[in-house]
């Protein structure tokens, strides 16, 4: 997935933060590393199969909806 916010995020985002917070170190390399690491973890979990029981349930609900629409 493309990063929709990449062009919007910058240290300038912190301009309006309280003085105490603005003193903290901003490290773009760390931010980049962190984002890629979190994205990697998320993608790994997202690649796992969706429970079959859920897919069956959704199929049944879909069929029920179709029957309801046919009657209507």
């Amino acid at each position, binding site marked *: *997935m*493309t*990063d*929709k*916010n990449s062009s*919007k*995020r910058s240290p300038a*985002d*912190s301009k*309006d*933060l309280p003085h105490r*917070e603005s003193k*903290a*170190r*901003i*490290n773009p*390399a*760390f*931010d*980049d*590393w*962190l*984002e*890629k*690491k*979190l*994205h*990697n*973890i*998320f*993608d*790994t*979990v*997202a*690649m*796992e199969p*969706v*429970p079959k*029981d*859920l897919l069956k*349930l*959704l199929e049944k*609900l*879909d069929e029920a*909806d*179709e029957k309801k*629409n046919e009657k209507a």
Partner: protein
Amino acid sequence: MATNEFHDMLLQHLPRLQAYAIMLTRDRALADDLLQETSVRALRAQSQFTMGTNFTAWIYKILRNEYISSLRRKKRQPMPIEDMPAEFLARKGEQENDVLSREVIQAMNKLQQGQREVLILICASGLSYEEAAETLGCSVGTIKSRLWRARARMAAFIMGEDKKSGGGDDGGPMLEPAREAASGNY
């Protein structure tokens, strides 16, 4: 919206919703329940979804609301960080990546709930600021503020700055993320 179109969108979003549910709950069984409840609720509420609006933010918001409701119903607390399941770790078998992933997850779970959620939605799941704001029911400015603070805290936890300031750290060996980033080894 046609029912089939709605079903297709829901099915397409299930893998990402599942990942969001697991990261949010830190509990696979609870995440499975949450995914099912979210799917059923979304189908029942499909007439309330307006064509042309953001389906991702809409469905993520349903999942989050269900999660909050389930916590209230069951009076459950999120899983302790020490019990984090191994399935969370990226690239199984690559020991260094596993260690780093575990450190990232453990650091993330030390964050305040609002900061953790923003990291999951934006950095992990790839939602835009606007989508995250809609999901969490707050302003884009709040999202940016929480994200900035979350990153600063994560840097402190992972790079050891928290230890210096007495902010609480498990004292384990720390790998250097910046060095790893520079070498291109994620």
